């Protein structure tokens, strides 16, 4: 087993947040990739609805409620507690664009 010293520079690269996240569609897409572990992209099949089928305001409100604990689901609240206001807006924008592309709502 060999340790590669020369690679240390590149290896020490730790992902860092780029500035000015609000309104950045790439950021919205990255955040939304988390949601697709549970929410389907196509037809509704169970308790996690496809998010592009929900109105923008509804998404924002639901996420705030899960985060605040006024609406509770252990799994979904865990997701929401990790979202800032800026994150919630970026996600809502993302699903709105997705909805327009897929002809969702």
């Amino acid at each position, binding site marked *: 087993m060999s340790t590669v010293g020369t690679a240390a520079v590149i*290896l020490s*690269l730790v*992902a860092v947040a780029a500035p000015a996240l609000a309104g950045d569609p790439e950021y919205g897409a990255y955040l939304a990739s988390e949601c697709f572990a549970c929410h389907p992209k196509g037809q509704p*099949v169970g308790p996690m609805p496809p998010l592009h089928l929900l109105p923008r305001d509804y998404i924002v409100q639901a996420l705030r409620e899960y985060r605040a604990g006024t609406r509770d689901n252990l799994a979904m609240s865990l997701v929401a507690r*990790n979202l800032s206001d800026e994150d919630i807006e970026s996600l809502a924008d993302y699903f709105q664009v997705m909805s327009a592309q897929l002809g969702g709502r």
Partner: protein
Amino acid sequence: MSLTTTRRQLLRTAAVVAPVWVAAPGVLRAQAKPRVVVVGGGPAGTTVAKYVARDSEGKVAVALVEPKESYTTCFYGNLYLGGQRTFDSITHNYVELVRKYGVAHYRDTAVAVDPATKKVRLASGRELAYDRLVVAPGIDIRYDSIDGYSEEAAAVMPHAWQAGEQTALLKAQLEAMEDGGLFILASPPNPYRCPPGPYERASMIAWYFKQHKPKSKILILDAKKQFSKQDLFLEGWNRHYPGMIEWVPEELGGTVEAVDPATMTVVAGGEKHKAAVANIVPAQRAGFIARAAGLANDSGWCPVEPGTFKSKLQPDIFVLGDAAIAADMPKSAFSANSQAKVVAMVIRHELTGSKLFEPRLRNTCWSSITDKDTVKIGANYRPTEAKLEAFDSFVSKVGESDELRAQTRAEADAWYDSIVQDIFA
């Protein structure tokens, strides 16, 4: 190091790399794309391949090396054993990955990696050159950790901890077993694939016995002192399967030392047990290619940088999923899929200059105790110098209502469909 410096350095590096799939002379460099080779088409590797190919919009060539034409998931495999899912419903293929995202699927096995020349050698003799390599081979079973166990013994006493033939074999044995038989489940020492997996398996087999072979018993011989969601499983077993399941922890002689497939004997704590069906799940380590490539340490698992999943031992290689040391994250399909999105982002950043965001990592695992009593556990993780630290978590509570448990089952079923879509479609 600032982001801009990194990018400039990477651009410089990228310019020197010979940009062809197979290192053949006479190909114009100007036409070349950076190449990503992914070894292993499980949740970890397949998600990386899909996300890099899709999000780089043709700017990166992605090859997936996976010998199998179709992939049967371990997750929901216990439900198949219990009779709640069909084999077909937990089997998926790579057709969409190739068709929709242009991933090249090599139905082959990686046998060697040369980090110096940046090439992967396949069993067929073909060589693939890479700019970034992703190694996600899952686990190997440590056959040598239990006396008398071997690949041949596994044809009689299956581990069924790598899905497909092994799971089907265990299912056939359970169906052939007479009512009143003893089913023995040997549960492995930490760390291993899917911490609650053995206990969900015992639950699902109890579910099958309760309906079809109610006089049968289940003996869990455990190499551990405690296990994941223990209170919830014990509550469920008392409630739904009273007297059927016995759990023997390590300190009471639970560790399986030896097996004899010829007589179906399992030896633990010096005591001999005779099984009608024996499911032996031994200790595990990273898949052989990870070890052959010099990516594993003495533990048999692969150390990685917590925020990026870059190997600590070899340059330009990422290891994720079950093969990686990602503690506190458990070895689960959910974790593998979550890690893959971070890895895909880092790789695209390095090869195409796309943006890098803070890694977001999560696990959520549902375990079914009956067909409508399901519990769950989950956590968020963030990289520190030393590890991936859990910073927020939940677990179902003992005594929850039947309604909530049934709802949790509906969630689990929906999760399965969504994650499989996120990985393979």
